[in-house]
């Protein structure tokens, strides 16, 4: 039952037209998408809006995305105009009245769009669309995208979810729905997301401390220095003169060296075993360096956690090929993008596997490399199957 039917039945009255008094707000765009996210809890916060925008802008570059809502609503990369917190509800009514389409989650805006007979693409992830879909307007103008309940289980009806169902919706589906509603030709039906890792939306720079040149792009950024990949601690001095370092190592790093560069060390993660000396760890801490300890999540973890009690020991989780569904079907059309890059010998790599194979990153997308090192980092990847004949052009498209 729709929630408004429930309200009507509760009062014993009929549903008529809603009422709101729109207040003028100056938006000078001809074609714009009104876009709304949510700030209440996480269950309506979709992490891949920027990917959907990327696809939309490939085909419809003249449409601008206007983000509405309140300041605490989820921030999204790729919007053109951010009006969050800058409008009243009555302003919002005016902005929606003049838009081309509404895109977003279940919210006040979707109902305002519906009351104004607007085209709508809305996501439903924590409740059924049937319970709160747009009430007014032509149904043909509405594309309601629900999570695949059969596959991922019934809705939580909760504002907070541990494993957000909304992220199970693929960005190319959203983009296609918007383009179809706007009647813009596209071949996005040939694109299919295979996997999006939980850390995909977190940009990360990793540096292999080899003797090659260092690209200028890491200047003043925080970089993970992978001493666990190549233990060349002398390189730390040079790196610290350029960037802030988060050192990752499975061996103790010279204390004198750490003391010299400590002002530029934003953290240090040690992958420990029983051989690590408590006094060494204390000395690192006494330098004022934020220390994180981690160890493989196996039977020995508890014993190590007790040994390193005063420092706290995290469980190291390593992904495998099995962590990615359908990974046995990988083929040449499987490509991936990552917000994480690895820098080595002056070159940029899109994954640890690419680095090991010496395949430098040439574009936004790279081909999937079917090896354990690749799957280990899969939490950072958006993997998709792209069967479009001209997919190379897609690779060069807008991307954050």
């Amino acid at each position, binding site marked *: 039952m729709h929630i408004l039917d429930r309200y009507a039945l*509760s009062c014993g009255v009929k549903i*008529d037209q809603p009422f709101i008094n729109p207040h003028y707000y100056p938006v000078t765009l001809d074609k714009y998408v009104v876009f709304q996210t949510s700030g209440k809890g996480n269950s309506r916060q979709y992490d891949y809006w920027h990917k959907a925008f990327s696809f939309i802008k490939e085909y419809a570059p003249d449409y601008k995305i206007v983000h509405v809502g309140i300041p605490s609503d989820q921030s999204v990369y790729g919007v053109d105009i951010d009006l969050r917190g800058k409008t009243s509800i009555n302003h919002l009514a005016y902005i929606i009245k003049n838009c081309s389409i509404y895109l977003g989650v279940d919210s006040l805006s979707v109902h305002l769009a519906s009351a104004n007979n607007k085209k709508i693409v809305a996501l439903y992830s924590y409740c059924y669309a049937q319970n709160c879909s747009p009430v007014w307007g032509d149904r043909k103008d509405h594309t309601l995208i629900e999570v695949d309940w059969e596959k991922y289980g019934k809705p939580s*009806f909760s504002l907070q979810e541990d494993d957000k169902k909304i992220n199970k919706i693929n960005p190319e589906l959203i983009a296609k729905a918007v383009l179809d509603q706007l009647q813009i030709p596209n071949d996005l039906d040939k694109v299919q997301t295979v996997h999006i890792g939980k850390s995909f939306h977190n940009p990360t720079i990793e540096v292999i401390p080899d003797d090659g040149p260092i690209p200028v792009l890491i200047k003043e950024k925080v970089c993970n220095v992978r001493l666990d990949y190549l233990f060349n601690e002398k390189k730390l001095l040079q790196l610290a003169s350029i960037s802030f370092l988060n050192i990752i190592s499975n061996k103790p790093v010279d204390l004198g060296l750490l003391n010299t560069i400590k002002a530029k060390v934003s953290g240090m993660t040690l992958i420990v075993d029983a051989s690590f000396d408590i006094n060494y760890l204390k000395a690192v801490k006494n330098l004022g360096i934020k220390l994180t300890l981690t160890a493989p999540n196996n039977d020995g973890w508890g014993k190590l956690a007790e040994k390193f009690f005063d420092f706290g020991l995290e469980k190291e989780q390593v992904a495998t090929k099995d962590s990615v569904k359908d990974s046995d079907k990988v083929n040449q059309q499987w490509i991936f993008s990552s917000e994480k890059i690895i820098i080595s010998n002056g070159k940029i790599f899109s994954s640890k596997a690419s680095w090991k194979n010496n395949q430098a990153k040439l574009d936004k997308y790279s081909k999937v490399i079917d090896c354990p090192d690749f799957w280990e980092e899969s939490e950072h990847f958006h993997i998709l199957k792209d069967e479009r004949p001209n997919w190379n052009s897609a690779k060069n498209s807008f991307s954050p």
Partner: protein
Amino acid sequence: MFTGFGKNAKNVLRHLYKTGKYNIIEFANSKTKNAEDLKTLPWQAFGTLPEQGKLQALASDQTKIRMASYGVMEIDELIKEAKPDFYIGTEDIWALSPLVDKKWWNDNCMIWTTLDSLPIFPDAIKIIPKVKHYYAWSSFVEKEIKRLGHPEGSIRTLRGATETSCFFRLKDEERKLLRKEFGLSDEFIVGFVFRNQLRKSVPNLMQGFKLFKDKNPKLKAKLLLHTHWSEGWDIQRLIKDNGLENSDVLTTYFCKKCKQYEIKSFCGQKIACRFCDGKDTVETTNIHNGVSEDQLNEVYNLMDVYCHPFTSGGQEIPVTEAKLTELITLVTNYSCGEDFCTEESGGMPLSWKPYFEPGTNFIKATTLPESIADKLERVASTPLSKRNEMGKKARQFVLDNLSAEVIGKQIEKIIDNAPKIEWNHSCSFEPRNPNHQPIESANDTDWVVDLYKNILKMNVDSEDSGVKGWVNQIKNGGSRESVLNYFRQTAIKENQENTRVELSDLLDKDDKGRRILFAIPQSAGDVFLCTSLLPSIKKTYPNYNIYFATKPEFFEILDCNPHIHKRIVFSPFMENLLTMEGHAGGEGYFDIAFLPHIGTQKVFDYQHNGKDIIQFDTKA
């Protein structure tokens, strides 16, 4: 399951965890419920503080925040979920005593607390019959309870657990080198490690030290005060008032940048560091920037004798640390000090005189300066070999009586001997009383305590920081009326569902018999959707006035709505249909109260997997 008291809880929990016998759940004070750092503990741990939203609601009341940090808001829920076989509460007694009236309290619940003054806190005595496992950290309490005629075992002694591995006597050579590092050689160093609070008898120590120094001019005596000089006692002034030189008193400086420390006489705060390039990074050691345990061990090893005069205390950790470094400890012979000043503990007693603490009337000790001077002289004149012998005895006393292993084993015994018990999980809410009339002739403190007890039903005393905060506010010109108003509003808010609020002032006087309430508390989307029902309501009841109740932030959605007579602020009491429409002797406020959110927002009654079909046409 454990609560509170930092170091002690950590030491005991580690011991219990290592036994492998117990499934431990820690309820950690002052952490948020799912704090990240709790996840690295080997056992399960939850913070006592509720989520941010609930905390923000308490923002203006320090007492409530403090109570929340002790777990008052979350403990019932945690007990309900954890179903512990044994509960150990180790924290201040005033935070634990209300728990004994909880419905879940049973014979497998233990209180392990510190009581430090006479007479024993009345609530601590009152709860004796309800607590089967009742322990205090010092024998002083057990003796007093026995003296008062309570049966033996009413409160037993179980000292706080000490981690013994960090503190030890360095080799003589190392000690000499350490002294050299700070420009010291053969001085006779009297040490005191303390948080600079008023209960630490710094003036008495200064006087005693001066007497001692005057009597022993050749001794090159120095007083090392390992504390922060920018809180509590004005140490600089005390030095001057007692005729001491600045160079007679040493302190510990710490650089927050390079984490190095230095021992020297006081020369100001935020000074330059001699070890790194920090220009203003050095301050006297304090709770925000302080030495590590290893460094503190070195500080103890600079001392020749440790002197700890205080008014009272639950268990003075520095005394045990000093003993572990094999120092003779001079301790005030009162409160927990009674356990640490005996010959077998490697200590010496400092004599004292009683005084009554203003406000609480607890007996506190003022340590006699003459006794301090006398005992310092006695130590100074004791041959080194004898001093070393006493120091070893001091260390052994801690190892035998306070080590985490010894205390942990005692806890094991208590838990292992406890019977299997069934928990009763029901927890009740005591209605607040916003209508309580405080006695206006009472002094400010009693008046505020009365508000806490009788309006908010909270058990506090005059020492409570919240009470002090309100009293200060009144002293600084705030009116009693505004304070009373705050308490009343809080009580009303907390009662919410139980309290009826008078609506009549919001309603027109001339539309009796023609009023409709339409209540929908939230959200913006639902309020907007519901505006589509108003034309039909108005059409059905043309002569009625529609009062639309919602949260104020949604009022703008209703701007200029032709069907609404008045917008009113939603309150939970409006959900009582009979109260709104009247029943029995009650006349009610409205002829019709539509509460459509009851079957949606309040209780889910519409989802039906999105598959149900309505047999009526709901569209106009």
